[in-house]
């Protein structure tokens, strides 16, 4: 009966939002580190902590609430200037940030379990360290209220986009009068009617649930309460003022218009009557809609469940019996850990934030498509051939546009991910005693969300490599005639049909000699062999290859570049290395624009159709067969004065028979290399949905997938990057 999904959605939204807030917090902390007077940063950190705290209460994630509460206190102090913002404090705050992340992970994967001992200990340690900063805890509460007032109360903001706010645009006022109100000569009537003068009492219900029955009830005691829906432009303070005279003898709870369901959950929780009764009342007077009420009651039920559980949790770890429980928890935790990580990844995948503008655009297009569709239908009933052709063209144009913008929905600027690495660089360089400036270029470059997620690990690895091996300590650098601060740059840009991401540093560069001797040691090369730089660098991608003289905890264990390469290749991308001794290293990652649909260019070779990614096709040309045959020793043609290597695809795919009299050449380019592919015929542009090849075809290295043509025939998608690489190796 209960809509479990909506509850799960709330949580998913909570976790997504909290992580976003944490990201913002981290960035603010890093900028605070550069400028300790930056008030905006402190405010944003506080806001993040405050919102996470507020929202966590809604789900009964007690530890997050407890922790952010103390964190808030310190931040209040920092903001008011009673606590000096020093590097040490920022370090601590960053640790706190990390810990909140741990807590979030914990609650997301196993919400009902207590924390494991390790986290619990860390929790205590951090709290102790935080508390040291708070000089007088008495004033903190007042200060905090002031801060909240100044920077604005942050209502659980995630409700905004996700319909968690109630539709009701009235204030909701809950009054519970004390027993002695009548005897004290106060009449609720006068207050309520005075309230009526300040605005419109849209609805009101008297509540007397807790009035005793029969003889027990005393006529002159007041047992009344009221639930009021009140529409007015006055503010909360002014509403409170209405009840000023009775303030000591009346519980007043005021909820603003369109507040979050969480607030109502809290209200239902706080009021003395039974939740169901209050809920019904809220629905009757129109404060909550039926479905809002349902959500609220569900959340409320869960909330009270988790709070009741608390004492039980506290027992854990007390005495003998409980010891067994810990064992059980540890065991279970270990067993389920893997599963949980997986679960979390899945839930991460479910939620994606979309730019509202993109969505609007898409909806617009769909609207137009509907109109064009009916137009096509109408015209097709007539004999107007030209009209039909035109309408169909319009429609396919629209479909194309819709495809593009649908794909665009998944595109997010990579800058956000990039700036997340700032923290990694900061922590690592401190640990290693290095000074590194971190730059981001082209952060606005858009990339498929899935790609970005999968890129994160390889990029972190490359960054670690740069910090650990590439860039030297300030002393070393000054000796080498370079500025003491190293530079690490992340750069993203578009290039023919792909997106390029570069990680470059101005460090020591790759040590060709060391690579060679290591390669010899591993039996990959002979000592007297000579290699080009390019060939040498390829050894780095060999599993277990590391030239680091000592293994550090950051890198140098020899697992790495091969994994990076594998990861990137699984995204249909490629990794390239450029390095100059003493000047620095650049790792260049080429990635396809999107994963699933490409604009293809179809060609025919013998009886089979093949599709090339259109982005990689630079031009098509026609040659005479003799021109191809007459070349001796090398497959080159003259393309307007340039030497262009070519591959005869018929030969390559071992098709029988020669090319037609006038074979066509498709010139393709990838990562700044061009080759010509000799094919029988050009078919034309073609939109393709890539279907991955089955496992048994995994050895077919020249094909990256297949697609089905309108005729039902299968066309193969040529892996152009591999073909180019192959051609270059043949040279």
């Amino acid at each position: 009966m209960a809509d479990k999904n909506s509850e799960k959605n709330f949580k998913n939204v909570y976790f997504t939002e909290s992580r976003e807030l944490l990201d913002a917090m981290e960035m603010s902390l890093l900028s605070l580190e550069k400028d300790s007077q930056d008030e905006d940063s402190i405010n944003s950190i506080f806001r993040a902590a405050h919102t996470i705290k507020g929202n966590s209460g809604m789900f009964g994630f007690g530890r997050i609430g407890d922790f952010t509460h103390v964190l808030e206190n310190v931040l209040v102090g920092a903001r008011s200037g009673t606590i000096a913002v020093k590097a040490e404090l920022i370090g601590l705050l960053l640790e706190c940030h990390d810990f909140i992340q741990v807590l979030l992970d914990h609650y997301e994967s196993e919400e009902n379990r207590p924390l494991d001992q390790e986290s619990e200990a860390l929790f205590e340690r951090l709290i102790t360290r935080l508390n040291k900063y708070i000089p007088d805890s008495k004033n903190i509460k007042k200060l905090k209220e002031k801060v909240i007032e100044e920077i604005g109360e942050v209502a659980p903001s995630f409700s905004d986009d996700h319909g968690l706010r109630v539709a009701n645009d009235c204030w909701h006022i809950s009054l519970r009068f004390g027993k002695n109100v009548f005897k004290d000569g106060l009449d609720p009537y006068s207050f309520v009617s005075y309230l009526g003068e300040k605005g419109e009492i849209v609805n009101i219900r008297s509540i007397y649930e807790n009035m005793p029955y029969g003889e027990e009830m005393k006529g002159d005691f007041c047992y009344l309460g009221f639930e009021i829906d009140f529409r007015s432009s006055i503010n909360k303070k002014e509403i409170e003022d209405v009840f000023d005279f009775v303030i000591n003898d009346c519980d007043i709870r005021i909820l603003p218009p369109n507040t979050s369901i969480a607030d109502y959950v809290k209200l239902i929780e706080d009021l003395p009557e039974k939740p169901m009764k209050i809920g019904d009342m809220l629905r009757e007077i129109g404060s909550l809609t039926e479905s809002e009420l349902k959500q609220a009651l569900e959340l409320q039920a869960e909330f009270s469940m988790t709070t009741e559980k608390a004492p039980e949790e506290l027992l854990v770890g007390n005495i003998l019996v409980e010891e067994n429980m810990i064992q059980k928890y540890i065991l279970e935790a270990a067993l389920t850990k893997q599963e949980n990580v997986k679960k979390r990844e899945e839930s991460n995948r479910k939620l994606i934030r979309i730019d509202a503008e993109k969505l609007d655009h898409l909806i617009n297009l769909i609207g137009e498509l509907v109109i064009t569709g009916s137009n096509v239908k109408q015209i097709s009933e007539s004999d107007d051939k030209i009209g039909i052709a035109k309408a169909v063209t319009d429609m396919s144009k629209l479909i194309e546009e819709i495809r593009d913008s649908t794909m665009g929905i998944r595109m997010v600027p990579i800058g956000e991910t990039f700036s997340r690495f700032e923290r990694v660089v900061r922590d690592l360089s401190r640990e290693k005693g290095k000074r590194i400036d971190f730059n981001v270029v082209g952060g606005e470059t858009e990339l498929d969300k899935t790609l970005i997620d999968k890129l994160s690990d390889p990029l972190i690895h490359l960054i670690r490599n740069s910090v650990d091996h590439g860039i030297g300590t300030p002393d070393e650098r000054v000796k080498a005639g370079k500025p003491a601060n190293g530079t690490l740059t992340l750069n993203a840009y578009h290039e023919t049909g792909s997106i390029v991401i570069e990680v470059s540093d101005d460090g020591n560069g790759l040590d060709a000699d060391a690579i060679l001797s290591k390669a010899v040691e591993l039996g990959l090369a002979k000592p007297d062999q000579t290699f080009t730089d390019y060939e040498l660098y390829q050894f780095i991608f060999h599993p277990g290859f590391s030239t680091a003289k000592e293994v550090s905890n950051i890198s140098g264990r020899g697992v790495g570049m091969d994994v990076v390469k594998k990861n990137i290749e699984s995204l249909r991308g490629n990794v390239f290395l450029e390095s100059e001794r003493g000047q620095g290293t650049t790792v260049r990652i080429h990635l396809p624009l999107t994963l699933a649909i490409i604009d293809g260019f179809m060609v025919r070779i013998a009886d089979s159709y093949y599709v090339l990614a259109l982005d990689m096709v630079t031009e098509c040309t026609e040659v005479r067969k003799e021109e191809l045959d007459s070349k001796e020793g090398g497959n080159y043609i003259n393309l307007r004065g340039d030497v262009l290597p070519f591959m005869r695809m018929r030969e390559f795919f071992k098709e029988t028979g020669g090319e037609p009299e006038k074979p066509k050449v498709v010139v393709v380019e990838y990562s700044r290399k061009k080759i010509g592919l000799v094919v029988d015929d050009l078919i034309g542009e073609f939109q393709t949905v890539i279907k991955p090849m089955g496992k048994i075809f995994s050895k077919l290295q020249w094909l990256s997938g297949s697609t089905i043509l309108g005729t039902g025939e299968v066309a193969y998608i040529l892996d152009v990057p591999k073909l180019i690489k192959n051609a270059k190796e043949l040279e």
Partner: protein
Amino acid sequence: MKLKIVRKKTENNSLHFTLAGEMTVYSVGKLKDFLLNELKSCSGITIDLAEIDEADTSGFQLLLFLKREAAILGKSFRITEMSSRLRNIFNLYKEIA
């Protein structure tokens, strides 16, 4: 207590009361005990409140109470007439008499 009560037996062991005067915190204590007792002894009550010239929320609360008690005891409780003062209170609290 400036409250006048006229008690009248009607058919089917019902009682009809006509109340006049003040239905405020000063009178509701005793009025409550009185009416609750009467309610228990009869099968139902009708009550005429047209002459209540002074009333406050405690009077309102008492009427809510009697209505609830009657429902629990399975007896009828009906207000036949109401003074404008009482009517105001019921209107403000949007309660149907």
